[in-house]
């Protein structure tokens, strides 16, 4: 393998890995506050991609209730990405209010909540199919505006071209991860959120409304899910209503690898799986997923708490 191919693989691995990380952060946030994996997260990922697609003024296909519909607005990519992710965040809040909150109020077993979130995922997938059909949607070539297809970070003689999409992905994920880390560790509301995650009753004795932070967490989680959905959808395509399901499973591998509930864990796990996948030889690329889950199994055997997780999951 020569250096250029090697570098190319590293770049590809880091860029898909960054998206895994953003997506997995959504799981991680909800897990750390409720101790529950939100299986509807993959469906929110899918919705985010559709929302952005729609907000850019792109039309839907021939199937489904919304056939041929196009919004009268045409937002540039960055704005559409932002508002599409906000919409995904709002859907996530709706999911929390409808599927999580009632069960929490009744102090139901967390397994029931997990099943409930799976149910929501199925409903969303079906709803998408009903509304816009099962076809693949591709973002138009001018999606990123005037950005050239690739930017040269090397010299004329030794070019290191990086696809513009990847540059967008690196910038967006870098900003997201730093911002999130700062907000959660250094601000009053971040500390309050961690207090709710550790002990909601004690948090409420300090004047913190746990419910508000749970809703906020679902919003941020959905925002990140939708963002990841758009990044994958716009750099490859939106592969139909089931788009997010496979990705959702990959995200689970990421958080288990990195450590459940750990923010740096989600980042490290995402980048690791992205990189390993990028080095799967072309002939075997159909088995990429097997590689990710292979790593997962080995991890569970040697270090069940994950790379950066707390020693054992201890949520009551």
């Amino acid at each position, binding site marked *: 393998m020569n250096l250029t191919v090697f570098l190319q693989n590293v770049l590809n691995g880091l860029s898909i890995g960054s998206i895994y990380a953003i997506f997995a952060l959504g799981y991680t946030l909800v897990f750390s506050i409720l101790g529950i994996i939100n299986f509807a997260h993959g469906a929110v990922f899918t919705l985010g991609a559709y929302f952005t697609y729609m907000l850019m003024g792109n039309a839907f296909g021939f199937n489904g209730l919304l056939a041929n519909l196009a919004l009268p607005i045409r937002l540039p990519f960055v704005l559409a990405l932002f508002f599409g992710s906000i919409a995904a965040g709002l859907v996530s809040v709706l999911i929390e209010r409808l599927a999580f909150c009632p069960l929490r109020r009744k102090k139901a077993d967390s397994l029931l909540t997990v099943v409930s979130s799976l149910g929501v995922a199925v409903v969303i997938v079906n709803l998408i199919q009903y509304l816009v059909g099962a076809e693949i949607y591709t973002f138009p070539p001018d999606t990123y505006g005037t950005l050239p297809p690739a930017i040269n970070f090397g010299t004329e003689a030794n070019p290191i071209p990086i696809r513009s999409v990847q540059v967008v992905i690196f910038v967006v994920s870098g900003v997201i991860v730093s911002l999130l880390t700062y907000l959660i560790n250094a601000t*009053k509301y971040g*500390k309050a959120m*961690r207090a709710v995650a550790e002990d909601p009753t004690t948090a409420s004795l300090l*004047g913190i409304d746990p419910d508000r932070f749970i809703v906020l967490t679902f919003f941020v989680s959905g925002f990140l899910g939708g963002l990841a959905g758009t990044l994958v959808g716009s750099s490859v395509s939106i592969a139909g209503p089931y788009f997010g399901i496979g990705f959702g499973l990959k995200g689970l591998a990421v958080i288990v690898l990195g450590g459940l509930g750990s923010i740096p864990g989600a980042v490290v796990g995402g980048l690791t799986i992205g990189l390993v996948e990028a080095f799967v030889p072309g002939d075997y690329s159909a088995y990429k997923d097997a590689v990710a889950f292979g790593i997962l199994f080995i991890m569970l055997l040697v270090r069940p708490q994950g790379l950066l997780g707390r020693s054992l999951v201890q949520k009551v």
Partner: protein
Amino acid sequence: MQEIPLLEIQGLSVHYGGIQALQAIDLTIYPGEVVTLIGSNGAGKSTTLRAISRIVNAHQGQILYNHENITRRRPHEVVKLGIAHSPEGRRVLSRQTVLDNLELGAYTRSSRRSIQSDIEQQFRLFPRLAERKNQLAGTLSGGEQQMLAIARALMSRPKLLLLDEPSLGLAPTIVREIFTIIQNLRETGVTILLVEQNANLALQIADRGYVLETGCITLFNKASELLKDDRVRQAYLG
């Protein structure tokens, strides 16, 4: 005695599932008082405090605070009204630092400067916390966690402070220290409801006391009278 109560509990009953923990208790606290609630294990002392801070629901009766009915308020709302609860078993936020715990104690307040000066005030009261301000609260010793729980409750600048067994598990010298701090707090105008196993010490610093037995108030009087009462002496003062 002052005529307008700060807290008035009327006919309060609390159940946990099928277990009745409190049966129609009445309890009144006037502004500036230190009132202690004594009773044996499982009598319902902690439950009384939990009902006031609203982390358990009242099944019957009502809780009036400053004339306002708070029986249906949510826990975070009563903190804003000026009630702070240092719960049984400390319950510090173990994954955050001492400083973060104190800052979160002031969650309902907004003036950064006065929060900062209150943190320094807590550090003067509890110098051990100052030395360990960047340590994770979960790694503090039991006694230090107790101090942190009290200091954290004070950070909301409460009008009414609910203290659940502040002396539990502490060395006698530290218990003295804590009780001195409680006495000094009264001088700053904080009203205190103190739950204690150490009835002798509690009655020495309290104005009045209530005796709770299996969910019922069986006796209440001036603390100095309770100290002399034969029934109290036999049951709680050993």
